[in-house]
């Protein structure tokens, strides 16, 4: 039996409740609500799921069951430069696994993790549809195509420098 309290910033509570309300607090709209909330927060922390459960009048367990079912939803914040390596078949047969390995090595993190300074996170995804450019890596929204393992450190360097500049400014 719970009587635990969770603490969330006021504007976050209001925004999430507003999202739920925009879908008439219908539990059938759960996935749309989660999409919007993730768009807003960048991820779906437990607190956000509790607020959604309350607003849609469903159990938090169901919300969590749904969040953990779909790979698009994440309970961990992503890095500022999220790296997604396409592991679609076209990319796979053109060596995407080597690209992933190289990223793991260069960033020193596993797939699904974010590095210590929160700059890079590494994920794999299924087919971005740029099969002609296989193997393909997405950094944020930008597509890097026709990659070889050697390109990985250059890409990482490029973004790290960009990021360092931004941080200075």
């Amino acid at each position: 039996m719970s009587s635990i309290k969770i603490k969330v910033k006021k504007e976050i509570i209001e925004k999430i409740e507003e999202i739920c309300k925009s879908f008439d607090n219908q539990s059938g709209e759960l996935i749309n609500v989660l999409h919007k909330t993730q768009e807003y927060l960048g991820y779906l922390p437990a607190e956000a799921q509790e607020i959604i459960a309350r607003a849609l009048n469903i159990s938090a367990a169901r919300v969590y069951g749904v969040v953990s079912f779909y790979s698009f939803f994440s309970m961990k914040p992503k890095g500022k430069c999220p790296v997604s390596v396409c592991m679609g078949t076209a990319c796979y047969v053109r060596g995407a696994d080597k690209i992933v390995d190289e990223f793991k090595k260069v960033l020193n993190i596993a797939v699904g993790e974010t590095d210590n300074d929160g700059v890079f996170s590494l994920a794999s995804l299924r087919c971005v549809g740029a099969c002609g450019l296989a193997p393909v890596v997405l950094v944020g929204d930008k597509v890097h195509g026709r990659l070889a393992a050697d390109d990985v450190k250059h890409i990482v360097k490029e973004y790290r420098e960009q990021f360092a500049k931004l941080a200075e400014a």
Partner: protein
Amino acid sequence: MATYKYHVLICGGTGCRASQSNKIIDNFKRLLKENGLEKEVQVVETGCFGFCEKGPIVKILPDNTFYIEVKPEDVEEIINEHVIKGRKVQRLLYVDPKTSEHKADSKHMGFYKKQLRIALRNAGFINPENIDEYIARDGYKALATVLEQNDPQATIDIIKKSGLRGRGGGGFPTGLKWEIASKNAADQKYMICNADEGDPGAFMDRSILEGDPHSVIEAMAIGGFCIGATKGLIYIRAEYPLAIERLKVAIGQAREYGLLGKNIFESGFDFDIDIRYGAGAFVCGEETALIHSMEGFRGEPTFKPPFPAQEGYLKKPSNVNNVETFANIPVIINKGWEWFSSIGTEKSKGTKVFALAGQINNVGLIEVPMGITLREVIYEIGGGIKNGKKFKAVQTGGPSGGCLTEKFLDTPIDYDNLLAAGSMMGSGGMIIMDETSCMVSVAKFYLEFTVEESCGKCTPCRIGNKRLYETLEKITNGNGTLEDLDLLRNLSTVIKDTALCGLGQTSPNPVLSTIDNFYDEYLAHVVDKKCPAGQCKALKRYVIDPDNCIGCTACARACPVGAIKGEKKLPHEITQSLCIKCGTCYEKCKFNAIKIQ
């Protein structure tokens, strides 16, 4: 500056190159120069024309003359006759076998073209964000016709007679599906479009939605009218932002024109469409899972019956079709079922869109009539294997399909033939593999996908596929036994027999088809502990060839685990028990002394 009068396009595809197309180019360049025409005539090498059996192909612009079977020595005549005198070289033109007529103009030589674009008719042709361009290409005419006729059953009959089958993979007859849904009375029904394209390596649905969203909207309205649904829902992957955007624009435009909404074409028929988003679950391509997902639940399939046609979205009769299926509908109405059913094979009518990918030159989206052979697709449309390597296998049907070998290259592609060959049509991914692909690893790749995408509801899929994957991993790690091969087969058969939904029932196909077609390769892994394709890291052995090694120590310094020992200027040696097979030494060696066994 010169302006070219003529352009000579010479096919640079693999087939034409093999029959000396490069020599033809050389001859053109040389002879044009000799004649002082190099400023007036431009010679350009192009990609494959897809008519390799009559290559080399030379095409002259702007008059579109199409010469076939051109030999290097014919170049002189073409220049003298065509370029200088403006007369076509009759003997090099294509002769229509039926009429014995010489065909000069490639525009009227469609028959040689391997592709026929029905579902993709507008993609790459019209501006997808402009409804007018769609209407200019007969858009919404089919809907208007259907509504004017006002006879849902008659339209269903047309679709039935056309022989159209579901393009999402299963191949269920579309007309029959509509008929069943139309017969279940209810106060509300739903027409659902499955745009949750999850097959890794297939992107035809996305291309259609991005290139021709109105064709899907129009077809959904037609289907809605036929089954008695006033509401359409498109379940689309959230990973397709552009397709979503274009769909939204298209729906908005259709509403403005009154082609969606109340009283369409003043027929009294109301129909509107909402978009629902997927969230990254392959299993949601299964229609019951898709419906649960749209209702805000985990995308777990449920046992059928009840079928969606009986109890679908919100427990109301619903019909689910895939994007490509819908894209065919308006054409069938406009051009008639007779026309449509004249294309394809006996049991598979029309065309199929494939996403060609992998080790093939022309990676891309193609649409071909059913019945075309894999050979035509791979060598004539796809331009052959990349880097001149040897063809090994073609994988169709994605994680539900199988790997087909050379012996199937001349099998006509249709639903039933692919199934009989141990694969399936699937949504249309077609991955070409060359000799560098290890087939055990390919099977493992697909199983890894299935394991990750399994919803976890039924035992065979949740645990069975995991065990299949683990066994394959054991084999690629060099720890497999002959008994494992037996167990793989038995478990695969049981999973196919017992899994709850289509995903599970087809998930062992990549294993079974590779065991069947590449048993030797499995044996090599298990018995000889070797990976013939050289892909399995654990089975690689790096050794130093003492004859080539000069003892430069570059490899020893680079080895991250200190597995390489040796005196300076003397041959080095790799301690196998320490080697982690990272390949660093192989890359560092400048003397080709490190060999992979």
